[in-house]
């Protein structure tokens, strides 16, 4: 089932949470809504689910206009951030709930409901825990019950709100891989919300980067990481360093010196240079960005140094090999191997 969102707007007591958002999700796709808190990603997810009413705009499930439909009619599988498992029901009862509340005409037989619920528990690798209560499960297990419960109603789309937000790092990684497997096996169109870029990059077919109620960029993980559309996306996804530069004569200048980077089609004037700290090459003095080491710290297998460029006015971060001899006040010159230029402003 593909989902189309058209010019969607949502205001909470006059404060816009979502501003004219349009998005198309292809059938069977795994999409991540990524953004800082307050960017409107959860609001967008809840609007698709029908848990909120849009102030303006339309939502299509396939060719059908779902905008006016209630959450029940939309038949979506929603996994809540805090799981929202029914605390007074056993794991099996939780999973079976969606089938049990169906009207008599479409409700399967009691034994069939039980069989299907057990099958789903098997799918999420929780066989044997069907009689437990939610409070007797670990966070990761609860998460999987929540997913099984959402899958039980044979949803048209699967929506997950910060699915791994409350779990510790190790469990997150396992569940990530596992969710990908489930998705590939069941083929549901899946939209999940996250503020964790690593999770989004690793898991999603496509990313929707959001900020302040607007979509900043939609694209594959590669596209979003390698060719960010704007400074926000560059800064939000992955590590980044920024430096104000001058463009003149198809070349970049810092402090009146050429730095050896070409900008063939860029008009003359101020601009912002963005690059990844690990994506730089050290060069002997010459046409390069040169600075003095102001601070240095060990990050995993590399050493991250903060360079002062042109006095204390600008600071950028780059990665050096961990055994690089640079200490405080050492002068270092480098050139970004890959970079993006954005107009200053």
């Amino acid at each position, binding site marked *: 089932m593909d989902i189309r969102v058209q010019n969607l707007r949502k205001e909470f007591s006059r404060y816009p949470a979502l501003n004219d958002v349009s998005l198309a999700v292809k059938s069977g796709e795994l999409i991540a809504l990524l953004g800082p808190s307050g960017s409107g990603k959860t609001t967008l997810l809840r609007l698709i*689910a029908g*848990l909120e009413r849009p102030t303006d705009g339309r939502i299509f499930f396939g060719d059908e206009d779902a905008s006016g439909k209630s*959450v*029940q009619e939309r*038949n*979506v*599988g*929603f996994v*809540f951030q*805090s799981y*929202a*498992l*029914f*605390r*007074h029901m056993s794991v099996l009862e939780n999973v079976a*709930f*969606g089938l049990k*509340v*169906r009207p008599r005409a479409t409700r399967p037989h009691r034994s069939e409901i039980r069989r299907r619920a057990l099958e789903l528990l098997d799918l999420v690798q929780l066989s044997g825990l069907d009689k*437990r*209560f939610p*409070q*007797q499960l670990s966070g990761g297990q609860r998460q999987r019950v929540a997913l099984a*419960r*959402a899958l*039980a*109603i044979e949803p048209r789309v699967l929506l997950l709100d910060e699915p791994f937000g409350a779990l510790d790092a190790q469990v997150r990684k396992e569940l990530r891989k596992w969710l990908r497997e489930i998705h590939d096996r069941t083929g549901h169109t899946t939209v999940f919300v996250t503020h964790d870029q690593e999770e989004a990059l690793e898991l999603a077919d496509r990313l929707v980067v959001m900020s302040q109620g607007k979509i900043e960029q939609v694209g594959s993980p590669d596209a979003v990481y390698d060719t960010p559309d704007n400074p926000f996306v560059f800064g939000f996804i992955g590590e980044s360093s920024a430096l104000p530069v001058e463009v003149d004569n198809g070349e970049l200048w810092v402090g009146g010196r050429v730095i050896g980077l070409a900008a063939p089609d860029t008009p003359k004037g101020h601009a912002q240079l963005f690059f990844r700290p690990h994506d730089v090459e050290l060069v002997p003095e010459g046409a390069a960005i040169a600075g003095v080491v102001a601070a240095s710290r060990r990050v995993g297998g590399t050493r991250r140094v903060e360079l002062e460029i042109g006095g204390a006015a600008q600071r950028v971060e780059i990665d050096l090999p961990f055994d690089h001899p640079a200490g405080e006040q050492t002068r270092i010159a480098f050139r970004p191997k890959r970079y993006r230029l954005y107009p200053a402003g």
Partner: protein
Amino acid sequence: MAQYEQDIAVYDSRRPDEPPDAHSRPTSEPAWVKWTLIAIAVLFLAALLLLPLLTVFTQALSKGLGAFFAAFTEPAGAAAIRLTLLVAAIAVPLNLVFGVCAAWAVAKYEFWGKSFLTTLIDIPFSVSPVISGMIYVILFGANSVLSPYLKDAHLQIVFAVPGIVLATIFVTFPFVARELIPLMQDQGTAEEEAALSLGANGWQTFWRVTLPNIRWGLLYGVLLCNARAMGEFGAVSVISGHIRGKTNTMPLHIELLFDSYNFAGAFAMASLLALLALVTLIAKTLLELRYGDHLAATRRH
């Protein structure tokens, strides 16, 4: 009052993970402090609660078992018991429904005037019961604006059962709502949303998700509400008109017997009322034990 009882419950239920040897803890006092405090508390409660209770029962039985039971079987006494049970039977279910509605509205929705509504719910607790009785006399009495219409409809409210029921509902309204609001606020709306997203309609969501989650708090509130409904004196006294055998509830009947120097009868009736209160209290304690088990069961493993 409810708060006070909860405090005691918290004090009693030591955490199971607490070490048995508490003497080494920096917050523990010497033994004599502990025993002095316990003695003061026990003596205080004995003097103020146990002694009067004993007096009630000894006085009630002072003229023998025959006189004791006669107090319940004589027409006015039997009528008072019937009326009290009737009033509680009407007021408690109504306040159960109103209380759930009010708690639901306050806990699960955001709306204009919400804090005002919360304040309104507390009014019966803060206003003297006598005043609440008088409000209804003024509202529905012989000289009120409404009285012509009530007369046309042949509705007698003041000095009749409807007035007593109204006053009792007013006085006991906060018990259920007060008990549920913090509970429902704490639980939030996530489970309800989950139920809706799974296809349940509003009614199914309420019966299968909301109600099971609040059942213990609700029962507790209903028990307190019931105890107060049967024991209410002030508001009912003003509005009932003290018509013997007709509008006298048990507390009013006790006062009447007491004022006419029928001490054995008064105390017999009082002992019955006290017994009802004790039963409620025991039921509450059993519930708490059960409730505690329920909580523990879900936290084990």
